């Protein structure tokens, strides 16, 4: 089998921690778009979900920082944040180590990937799961791209990481869902939190929905920091999903600035159907 679903969404901790403070006129349609993601994900009947995230020092530190890592644990604990602060109860989330091992082995043919048999989830994975699999019952394979501790992997390699994951998924019988989560423009956890470059976000997501590889990978880190903040480095996760769906286009269902969430709320999917691939060809 292969990918049965591929999407992207934001993961700001404010989405759960400060949901009550967001303008309902924007928040409610955003959450409705996330619920539509949940519904389509369920309809795709996945056996597992790979979440490509940009973790925030829950597991990896500058003493040994992998550019790319994939989890291979029986289960995962999260959130590492104070549960009362994040408003997500701490729990264990099932993994699938055998499937992880096969995905990692497959991906390694194209990209050098670290693996981890221990992994704690932070808001970057817990917040998306709380919307997508609110019972936390679908086995998760976490994948991380270092977007916090420079030097960072080049965007072109993030696209290749996605292609490698796709090839690995193509080689296993399970039905795999893929979700990329990360910010577009934002200046999180700074005095400027809430600053959002809406125009930049829309341009980036337009490139994403066209799966415009050269457009997606043309940003320099200096430009991203200037125009989209340090949070913008997380576009690597979204670019990886585009790479996994090379030859397919997608749709953005929602994108609006929600300052109290520190980012634009966004949700989108790639059309991973065979018909879409044939059309693109």
């Amino acid at each position, binding site marked *: 089998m292969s990918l049965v679903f591929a999407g992207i969404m934001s993961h700001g901790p404010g989405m759960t921690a*400060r949901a009550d403070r967001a303008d309902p006129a924007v928040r409610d349609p955003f959450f409705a778009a996330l619920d539509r993601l949940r519904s389509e994900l369920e309809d795709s009947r996945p056996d597992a979900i790979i979440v490509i995230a940009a973790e925030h*020092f*829950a597991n990896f530190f500058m003493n040994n920082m992998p550019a790319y890592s994939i989890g291979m644990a029986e289960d995962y604990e999260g959130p590492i*944040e104070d549960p009362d602060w994040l408003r997500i109860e701490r729990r264990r989330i099932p993994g699938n180590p055998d499937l992880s091992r096969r995905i990692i082995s497959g991906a390694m043919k194209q990209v050098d990937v670290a693996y981890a048999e221990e992994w704690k989830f932070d808001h970057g994975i817990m917040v998306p799961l709380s919307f997508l699999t609110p019972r936390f019952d679908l086995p998760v394979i976490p994948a991380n791209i270092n977007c*916090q501790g*420079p030097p960072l992997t080049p965007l072109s390699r993030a696209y290749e990481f996605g292609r490698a994951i796709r090839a690995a998924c193509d080689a296993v019988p399970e039905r795999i869902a893929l979700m990329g989560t990360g910010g577009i423009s934002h200046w999180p956890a*700074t005095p*400027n*939190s809430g600053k959002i470059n809406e125009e930049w976000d829309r341009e980036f997501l337009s490139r994403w929905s066209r799966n415009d590889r050269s457009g997606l990978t043309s940003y320099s880190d200096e430009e991203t920091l200037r125009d989209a903040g340090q949070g913008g480095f997380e576009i690597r996760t979204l670019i990886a999903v585009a790479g996994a769906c090379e030859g397919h286009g997608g749709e953005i269902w929602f994108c609006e600035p929600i300052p109290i969430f520190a980012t634009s709320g966004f949700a989108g999917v790639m059309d991973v159907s065979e018909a879409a691939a044939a059309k693109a060809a």
Partner: protein
Amino acid sequence: MSLYALQKLLYELNRDPAVQEAFATDRETVLGRYRLTDEEADAMRRDDVGKLYILGVNGQILMHFAAWRGLSWDEYIATMKDALAEHGQVRGGIYAAVDGGAGGAL
């Protein structure tokens, strides 16, 4: 500049309840395990989240720490703004303030 050591301490505090417990009961011993500058150790002694921000601690590490120390979101943002006014721009890392620290949603 031992920003690396300071961030490592915070990283280990954020993810390990055993380190948190040790920090709560005998903070000096925990601080002594890391090669901190006097300024960094002092900020840690005083739970001075604003100063830690100025010293260059990655925002993601600092946000988790601030939550653990009981700062509400608004207090956390306000603390960073106050520190920026008192000490000037962030001295390291990638989380420097822009626009003079203005704006942002509390």
